[in-house]
Structure formats: structure tokens, C-alpha cells
């Protein structure tokens, strides 16, 4: 399909490459593939920001899990000296940021903790502070984006991933779980995990997971990776496999023990050592691979392209900001002038 645009003295013909042109063959080496290296270099130099939120009742091992995931003391408990465990009266959000580096790649990791969630007797609307926080981050980003003088790199404090801890009851989702995930699933990528999974046997675990998956489907809750955002068949196959095994049953620890002459991370009990990174024992390795090694960029992309855009559309519609109404190329009044009718 040819599209012809004529504007004054310039005539531009653009051939819509999708429809008309097949791939043009190259007769020899050009060097286009070097762009991959260039991109790699730039990413490494720029570093990345990742914001992860952990939600769940106190005592489920959230801080320990995050420390285990990132192999360093990133949670708020480890940061505040003389920390006393107190159950707070309302849900408060605590953000702690660190810069970690691996093989030249710098990452600014922010862990947002939610102490007090689900701990009260009356837990009505306990998700509200969290929803507010998530939306506040989107708002901050939106404001920065709408500035005239924009920063070269807008600081990204949006929540990329929310890990929701389900207590290992072995039955089904509780009302608080359903309510929370329903609401948050619309605005952020939720990854549910079964916490302290060493209290379930393998069979119990499978049943529990199956039950949870059914409950999630019955309530229309979309967790990461969402089916609708799969872009190509390969991705779909990969994500289907992941979807069949969520929620991951995890165990977290930062203690190391000797097993068969190797040092492994594990929890030592009288009846054995639960190896955290052993896939036969628990699914921590799967979670870590999903979050960090394979889908890190995807989490950020889904947040930016989908959740943030949804927020933006809603916000701009609310405040009636319709730029096309104003007509960007010429001031609107000149446009409306031409429609003067001659009586």
C-alpha cells in the first residue's frame, strides 16, 4: 500500500513495508547486528531500577524471602537497627532502596514492605493504603512525563511487581486474599506465592495449588503472567508452563548449612535440611528465575506499557485533558475560522 502525503511543496511517498515489500536481501556484510552489542552496552551503562512490593500478614517470611532472592540484606528489617517487631495499627508502607551490582550491571532495588496488612481484627479496606501508594507512583511518573522540561531519565518508582504471600493453610483462598488480589490485579502485576511451604507435603502442595488456581479463575483475578499480554506463540508456551505452576511454594532463609560437602542455603530441622535452592524441595528457584533471570524486563515492560498506560488513560479522561481537542498543529481558532458559513 502506497501512502501519499502532500503538504505544500513537499511530496513524500512512503511504502508501507508490511504489505508491499518483502525483506530486502543483503549482498554482503553490513554490520547491522552490531546494534545488539550497542544496546547491551548502553543498558549496562544506564543501569536499571526495580521496585518490588511484598504483601502479606506478618510472620509469613516476607523479609526473609526478599533477602534470599537478592542474596543480601535488602529488607527493611535488616536495615533499621534495633528493630522491634510490633504489630502496627494501620497498614503502613516502608520503602527501602539499595544499589546492587553484578557483572557490571547496576540495579537500584527498592523493596516496599507493608507491615500491618491483614493483621488487624477488622481488616476492611486494608488494601486501600497499598492501592493509594501504587497510584501515587503512577501519578508521580505521569507528572514528570508531562513536564515541558523533562529529565533525560524519569526516575521510575512505579511498582513493577507485587509478591503476595498466601499462608500455607492447604485449603483455599481466604476472603482477604480474594479481595486484595482482585483490586490490585488490575493495577499491578501480582505474583502469588505460598509462604512457609515446608509445612505442606508434596501432595498437599499440589492440591492447594490446584485449589488456588481454581479460586483465582472463579474470581476473575489475573495474576502475572497475564494471558492477554502474550505477544507471540513462543511466549505463550513459555508462560503457559509458568501459569500451570503458580503459585510457587517457597521457603526462604539466609542461613547456610553443609549438605554432602557443599554449602547450601537451607533450613535445618530435626528431621532434615530443607534446601532452598533444590527444586525437589521447594520452588524458590523457579520464583527466582521467573522474577529475575527471565522475566525481569518483561515485568517492567508490562508495568510501563499496560498498567501505567491504563492509569494514564483514566487520569487524562478524568481531567478532560484532550489534546486533540486543542489541535496541536495550529491553534484551534484558526481551524474553526474556516467553517464560517456564508449566509
Amino acid at each position, binding site marked *: 500500500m502506497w501512502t501519499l502525503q502532500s*503538504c*505544500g*511543496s*513537499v*511530496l*513524500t*511517498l512512503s511504502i508501507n*513495508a508490511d504489505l508491499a515489500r*518483502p*525483506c*530486502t536481501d543483503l*549482498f*554482503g556484510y*553490513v*554490520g*547491522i*547486528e*552490531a*546494534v*545488539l552489542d*550497542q*544496546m*547491551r552496552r*548502553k543498558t549496562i551503562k544506564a543501569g*536499571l531500577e526495580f521496585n518490588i512490593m511484598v504483601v502479606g500478614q506478618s510472620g509469613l517470611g516476607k523479609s526473609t524471602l526478599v533477602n534470599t532472592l537478592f*542474596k*543480601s*540484606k535488602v529488607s527493611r528489617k535488616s536495615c533499621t537497627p534495633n528493630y522491634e517487631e510490633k504489630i502496627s495499627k494501620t497498614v503502613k508502607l516502608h520503602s527501602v*532502596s*539499595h*544499589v*546492587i*551490582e*553484578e*557483572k557490571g*550491571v547496576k540495579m537500584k532495588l527498592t523493596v516496599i514492605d507493608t507491615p500491618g496488612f491483614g493483621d488487624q481484627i477488622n481488616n476492611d479496606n486494608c488494601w486501600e493504603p497499598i492501592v493509594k501508594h501504587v497510584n501515587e507512583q503512577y501519578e508521580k511518573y505521569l507528572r514528570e512525563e508531562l513536564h*515541558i*522540561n*523533562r529529565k*533525560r*531519565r524519569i526516575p521510575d518508582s512505579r511498582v513493577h511487581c507485587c509478591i503476595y504471600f498466601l499462608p500455607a493453610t492447604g485449603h483455599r483462598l481466604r476472603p482477604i486474599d480474594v479481595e486484595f488480589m482482585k483490586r490490585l490485579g488490575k493495577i499491578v502485576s501480582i505474583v502469588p506465592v505460598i509462604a512457609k511451604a515446608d509445612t505442606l507435603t508434596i501432595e498437599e502442595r499440589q492440591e492447594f495449588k490446584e485449589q488456588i488456581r481454581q479460586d483465582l479463575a472463579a474470581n476473575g483475578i489475573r495474576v502475572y503472567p497475564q494471558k492477554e499480554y502474550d*505477544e507471540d506463540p513462543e511466549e505463550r508456551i513459555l508462560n503457559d508452563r509458568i501459569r500451570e505452576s503458580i503459585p510457587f511454594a517457597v521457603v526462604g532463609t539466609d542461613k547456610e548449612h553443609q549438605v554432602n560437602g557443599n554449602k547450601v542455603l537451607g533450613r535445618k530441622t530435626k528431621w532434615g535440611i530443607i534446601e532452598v535452592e533444590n527444586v525437589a524441595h521447594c520452588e524458590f528457584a523457579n520464583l527466582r528465575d521467573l522474577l*529475575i533471570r*527471565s522475566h*525481569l*524486563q*518483561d515485568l517492567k*515492560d508490562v508495568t510501563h*506499557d499496560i498498567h501505567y498506560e491504563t492509569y*494514564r*488513560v483514566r487520569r487524562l*479522561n478524568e481531567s*478532560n*485533558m484532550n*489534546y*486533540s481537542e*486543542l489541535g*496541536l498543529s495550529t491553534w*484551534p481558532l484558526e481551524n474553526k475560522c474556516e467553517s*464560517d458559513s456564508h449566509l
Partner: protein
Amino acid sequence: MASSDDAPQPYKGVRPLSLAGHVGFDSLPDQLVNKSICQGFCFNILCIGETGIGKSTLMDTLFNTNFENFESSHFEPQVKLRAQTYDLHESNVRLRLTVVNTVGFGDQMNKQESYQPVVDYIDRQFESFLQEELKIKRSLHNYHDSRVHACLYFISPSGHSLKSLDLVTMKKLDSKVNIIPVIAKADTISKSELHKFKIKIMSELVSNGVQIYQFPLDDETVAKVNTAMNGHLPFAVVGSTEEVSVGNKMVKARQYPWGVVQVENESHCDFVKLREMLICINMEDLREQTHTHHYELYRRCKLEEMGFQDTDPECKPVSLQQTYEAKRQEFLVELQKREDEMRQMFVQRVKLKESELKEDERELQSRFEQLKRLHADEKSALEEKKRLLDEDQSSFGKRRAAAQLLQAQSLTANGKKDKDRKNSGFM
């Protein structure tokens, strides 16, 4: 005006932490690269130069392919731009390349406005990106970026200095696009002349304040190469798609009676340098500069022109929304005013028309009366005539009757007389 953090700096105010083991986020650049491979890359080059200077040939040589080009005539009345998009494939990288050529540049008698179509084209691409970015429902990751990432400016190999057309055009474009000047048809200049020519060109550009694209020096891996290349600007290139056998290989070259100019021979011309700089090392940087520098500048100017500001006169930050609301009110007021004006005008016109029509009506009425009177007059005249005629007729009738009677009487009297005579005759 631009933000202070031009180069990404390590995160300030955040403590660094050491890792106790391998976490695995060093695979992020690979994840990113994989995603980009799926999506494909896009690159747009603008070639500015006089007709016949070798732009299309150089593009063919650079990308080792045969873009379908046709020769343009020298008689174009105005400068036009022709953009063509191609999908190129090399190993697993898909590149959507758009080559924009100027048609008729430098051919007109009066070249004062030659640069304008080029500037307009570049601005239009920025504009459409800005419009997409400001839409409510937008899809930026699917958007086909048509902004010009690199501009190759072809300098004709006179050997002396830049033409004034070149200077003017480059000055107009340097804040909008990354300019890479190249000396075309470099096989017409000898080595010593070339050296002097390059120095002359660079000093002219500097003295006229033209900002050409400098290869970036902030990344250690490529800083050395880039610094060296920066010293070789502008690149003297020769383009050719024909192959000539040299030694036992077929190379791209131009064959002359006195020798063969090999395109990929570094001692013959700078083509390899150009290809390396443009594609292999700095393509991503060119795209980044276009987006973060030139596009932001355009956006800022455009929005400020429309009256949006970040801070109001008291230097308090004004959100876009406030400005927008104010503008919207203004706009609505203006609209209302115009509506009233139009309504007034309408009422006036209606009145005028009404009075005209009334006037006509009256005229018509008077004419009607006049005609009616005329008609009545004629009618009465005719009646009069008729009456007279009738009278005449009746009087004539009477006279005739009288005459007949008389005649009849006279006849009988005569008859009697005759009778009497007859009778008297006998006696």
C-alpha cells in the same frame, strides 16, 4: 534548561550493597536484547545533497543491497523529499530502514528556500511523534518511529571550501538532527588536497557555529575508536555497487583507465570508517540522541509556543493540567464570543433580508393596484361604447321601422290613387 543529569550517574543517596551469591539480574541486558530482536529495530537516514552527487549509490553500497532508485531530473522546480522504507535482515536482526532523499536540491536558480522543505519534513516527523505521545490512548511501543536519526550531508568535492548553500542548510538543521557531513565522489580529490579540504571544512563549520554530530566518548569500550574517528570527519567516501576483480577477489570498486578505486580499501577512501561509525558502533547512540536531545528540544519549543509552562510568573510549579484548564477556559470564552458575534450577524442579515422583502412586496402591491385600475378604466370605457352602440342600434331600428311603415302607407295610398284613377277613367 535541559536537566543536569546528562550522563546517567550512579544512584545518589542510595547505599550500595554487596551480594552474597549469584542473583542473576546480569541477564537483564540479554532480556532486553531478546525483546528488541522480537520487536525489530528501526533507523531513518536523511541524505541531503545535490542531484547526481551519489546519494543513492552510497546508500546501496552502505547497506550492500539494491534499493530501487531512479535517477531524478535536474529540472525540479522545488526541493522535494522522497522517503522509502525497507526491511533488512541480517542474522537475527530485523531492521526497518527508511532512506529519505532530497530531490532537486541545489538545482534551482534561486536556492534561498531550498532548506525549508527539509526542515519541514523533520518537524513533521517530530510532530507526529509528539501527537502520538500526547494522545490519551496511545501505543508507543508499537509506533513506527519515523523521526530522522541521522542526516548525511553530501559536500561536493570542489577542493576549496563549503558552499554557502551548505552552510545555510547545515546551520538550519544542526539543532534538529544529527548531521554527519561526508565528502562525496572523493576519488576526484588527491590526498593532499583532501587533507587541506577537510581542515578547511571543519574550521568553516566551527567558525559558523554549526554543531555536527560528535561520536560519543563516554563509553570506555568505544571512546578510543570514536575519538580517532572524530578527527577524520568529514569522511571522504566513494560509492559503488559494481564489482571489479582485484588480485583474485571481487571487490566493490570503480574502474578507471588509470586504476581501480576500491571502496573498502581504507587507504583509498573513508567508506569503511563511515560504515563502522554509522552502523556498527553508533547506531543506537544516534537514535538515543535524536530522542533525548533533538526531540525533547522540539517538544519543549512546541509546548512553550502553545503557552504551556512549567512554572507560572511567581515561579511556582504549574502543572500541565492547570495550564490546560486555563487555556480551555480561555478557549471556551473565545468560542462563546464568536458564537455571539455570529448570532448577531445572523440576526442583522435576517432583518435586512426581511426589509428588502417587504419593500418588494409593497412595490408588487402598488403595481397590482395600478393594473387593476387600468383594467377597470378600460372596462368602463368599453361599457360606454357598448351602450352607445346599443342606442345607435335601437334608434336605427326605430327609424327603420318608421321608414317601413311609411313605405307601406305610401304604397297603399298609391294603390288607392291608382284605383281611383282607374275608376275615374271609366266615367
